[in-house]
């Protein structure tokens, strides 16, 4: 018996990075996995093949998570094909790092739309599926910068702090329907997103981490597995840092 046997999970923005690791971790643990990303390319095709190789049902949708219309289309297709959704991971996100002085309104709005409005879209649409089932686990990808702030990331940090408030509100609103809502706040995780940071910033962060190493996408995927599974059935409304102690 695997931890996620009989469960159907959806991960947004999973073609690479943390989302990709979560999708694979879920499949390894028996879940059927649906994933989305903005476009179909060799990365999404590669992940699709890897998921299917694990012997679970898999599906990919090229969809813009910031579009409510496209989210509804994904939901219709998912319910038609899988009939239910047990785990939703709102992972899709981008950065547009810039000092506030130089940040354009477009940099701001784009990050808020892709990172925060997308969480609203998927949670709104798929929570009605979970309400009918009287069960579900929603996992939102926040960040420690949403807790502590970070120079040069006012837009990103605001979107991630928004996700935290959203996560707690949804936990209160849907708890009576046995739907849990938690946030993961990754610290410094080695992905394409953090590769964009300067050497200097990366070195500084590493020095600050009590466990003295950067995190991997798999570190985050293991926490997501816990939150997706029934091991965490009495845990909701929490923001769990996966950061080697960085936020301390």
């Amino acid at each position: 018996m695997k931890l996620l046997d009989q469960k159907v999970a959806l991960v947004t923005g999973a073609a690479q990075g943390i989302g990709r690791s979560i999708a694979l971790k879920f499949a390894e643990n028996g879940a059927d996995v649906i994933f989305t990303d903005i476009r179909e390319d060799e990365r999404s095709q590669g992940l699709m093949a890897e998921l299917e190789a694990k012997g679970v049902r898999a599906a990919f949708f090229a969809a813009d998570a910031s579009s409510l219309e496209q989210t509804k289309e994904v939901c219709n297709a998912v319910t038609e094909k899988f009939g239910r959704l047990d785990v939703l991971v709102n992972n899709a996100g981008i950065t547009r790092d810039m000092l506030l002085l130089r940040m354009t309104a477009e940099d701001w709005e784009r990050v808020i739309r892709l990172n925060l409005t997308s969480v609203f879209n998927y949670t709104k649409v798929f929570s009605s599926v979970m309400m009918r089932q009287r069960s579900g686990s929603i996992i939102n990808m926040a960040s420690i910068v949403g807790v502590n702030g970070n120079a040069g990331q006012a837009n990103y940090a605001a979107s991630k702090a928004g996700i935290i408030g959203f996560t707690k509100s949804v936990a209160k609103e849907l708890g009576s329907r046995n739907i849990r809502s938690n946030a993961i706040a990754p610290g410094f995780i080695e992905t394409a997103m953090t590769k964009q940071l300067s050497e200097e910033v990366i070195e500084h962060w590493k020095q600050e981490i009590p466990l003295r190493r950067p995190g991997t996408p798999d570190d985050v995927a293991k926490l997501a597995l816990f939150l997706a599974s029934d091991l965490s059935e009495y845990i909701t409304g929490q923001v769990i840092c996966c950061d080697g102690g960085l936020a301390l």
Partner: protein
Amino acid sequence: METILTRVQRVIAGKLGVTEDSVTMESDFIKDLGADSLDVAELVMLFENEFSLEIPDSEMEKMKTVGDVVGYLEKNMK
């Protein structure tokens, strides 16, 4: 031809697991039928589907009893 009340009763019975007979015009969703605020929001969406119309949030807030819903539908259905 089914009356509006009959259709409303059927939707409520299906959603809340009560018998259709127990749903009267005077029934208060929360006090009499055991619904909570989420149930009421879901019921309003089911009424929108059943009667193919949109019920504004401002109207939803006024719907305390089955009679409130039937009254609104009678006024707003073509």
